[in-house]
């Protein structure tokens, strides 16, 4: 794998880095430290800038009006876009556009008209409804939400939990069991409208994150027309699995971006902070923390870019994506923790971003498939077969 950046990649990385430092950082200085949304006029102004840079909707394929970047370039940019306080979960506050629900790129024409295009135009919002109280890492077994055919409709009953954005969404992708005895081959993906009778947002699930909370959903005889099936009946598992695997690369990259920024801040700080008459930079204990940070970052970055490279080659990248996810989320946690320690008391205040990164980074070891499950995936690929 060649890790030499092309001139275009280098230029894009510098452009996004400048955008974060010059446009996002100053806004955050006045925002609530847990905020995840810009004022509408600021958002519009910055979208104008990213559009001018040719980077708006960078995750969207060219055929749908996006920037059409390869995974490697997109990963490099993700590492830049997350380098601010809210960057882990809302990189640049969405001013580079949102990928929407990538599964809709494979929807039929009617579904694209009703859901994909309005989402890309910012007129509709969707959610991804997979995880259930019985679990999220093993959709083949954990999905107990049932959909039963009734004439031209399907009737859905069940529950979902830890679903982001469902309370504000116009529609959602809901995975339900349509063939009880078929395991992973018995799950179907339905597009449901949130104003359909029987759709309930039962509660907000409060977590370490103060914004971008999760919700618990309940479906009570939710009647969905057959035309709202995404893909084929019993074909939902591959839709879910594809998304989960692909998402692990940008997910890892965002963790790395935060780690890189935390390390930059720690390095700046040790050069100006004195203790016992000398700079922190002269203390070997502190130097070792910075060295460990750097090794953590470089190791995880290599694995993440290797996964992106394989994805770009069209080769299977499940193992590589799992390794990137483990390495970046665990390294990110360690780096933020050390940077916080270097900053002492200031490190835990809300004046600095470390406390938010610390809370949110902890979630990353669980989100998008817990790291233990990622290890299981790698073991399966190494040893072969399916085992428990």
């Amino acid at each position, binding site marked *: 794998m060649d890790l030499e950046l092309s001139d275009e990649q280098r230029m894009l990385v510098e452009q996004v880095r400048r955008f974060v430092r010059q446009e996002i950082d100053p806004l955050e200085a006045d925002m609530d430290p*847990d905020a995840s949304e810009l004022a509408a006029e600021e958002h519009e102004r910055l979208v104008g800038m990213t559009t001018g840079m040719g980077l708006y909707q960078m995750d969207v394929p060219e055929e749908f009006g996006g920037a059409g970047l390869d995974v490697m370039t997109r990963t490099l940019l993700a590492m830049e876009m997350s380098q601010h306080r809210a960057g882990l979960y809302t990189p640049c506050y969405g001013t580079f556009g949102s990928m929407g629900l990538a599964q809709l790129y494979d929807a039929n024409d009617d579904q694209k008209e009703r859901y994909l295009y309005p989402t890309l135009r910012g007129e509709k919002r969707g959610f991804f409804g997979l995880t259930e109280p019985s679990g999220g890492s093993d959709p083949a077994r954990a999905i107990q939400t049932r959909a039963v055919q009734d004439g031209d409709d399907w009737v859905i009953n069940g529950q979902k939990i830890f679903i982001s954005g469902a309370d504000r969404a116009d529609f959602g992708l809901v995975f339900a069991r349509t063939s009880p005895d078929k395991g992973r081959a018995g799950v179907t993906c339905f597009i449901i409208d949130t104003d359909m009778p029987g759709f309930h*947002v039962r509660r907000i699930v409060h977590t370490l994150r103060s*914004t971008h909370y999760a919700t618990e959903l309940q479906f009570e005889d939710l009647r969905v027309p057959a035309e709202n099936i995404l893909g084929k009946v019993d074909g939902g598992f591959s839709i879910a699995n594809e998304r989960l695997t692909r998402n692990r690369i940008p997910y890892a990259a965002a963790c790395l971006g935060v780690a890189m920024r935390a390390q930059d801040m720690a390095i700046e700080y040790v050069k100006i902070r004195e203790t016992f008459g000398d700079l922190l930079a002269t203390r070997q204990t502190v130097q070792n923390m910075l060295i460990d940070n750097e090794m953590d970052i470089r190791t995880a970055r290599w694995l993440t870019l290797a996964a992106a490279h394989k994805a770009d080659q069209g080769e299977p990248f499940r193992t590589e994506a799992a390794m990137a996810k483990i390495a970046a989320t665990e390294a990110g946690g360690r780096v933020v923790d050390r940077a916080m320690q270097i900053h002492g008391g200031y490190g835990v205040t809300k004046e600095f971003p470390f406390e938010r990164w610390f809370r949110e980074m902890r979630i990353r070891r669980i989100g998008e498939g817990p790291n233990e499950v990622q290890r299981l995936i790698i073991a399966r690929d190494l040893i072969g077969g399916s085992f428990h």
Partner: protein
Amino acid sequence: MAIRLEKAWRPLTDEVVKGLAAQLGVYQISNNKEEIVYIGYAGGRSLWGLRGALQDKLAELGEGYQFRIEVNQQYLSRWEELLKVHKGDHDALPPGNKDHRPRRVGQLSLG
């Protein structure tokens, strides 16, 4: 934690408010009929937490109102939850929040 904030109302006066700690959290303000007129939060940038936020509201509204608080580090998600609950109960946001939010409040099925 109950989904609704159900603590007893206390008079929104300088004397009562100055006794509050400067913690982060959410609060509600009601008129003398116990109708909620505003739901707010004291976030990480507030100088004096809930005490400061309520002192500001007292200066803005004057006396004749009541308040109740909940100390909460997850003040933003709790604030949004209280707005949703109010909207679910009354089909509208409190008068003081009507022009306040940049984004949609969202739905919550109560009951």
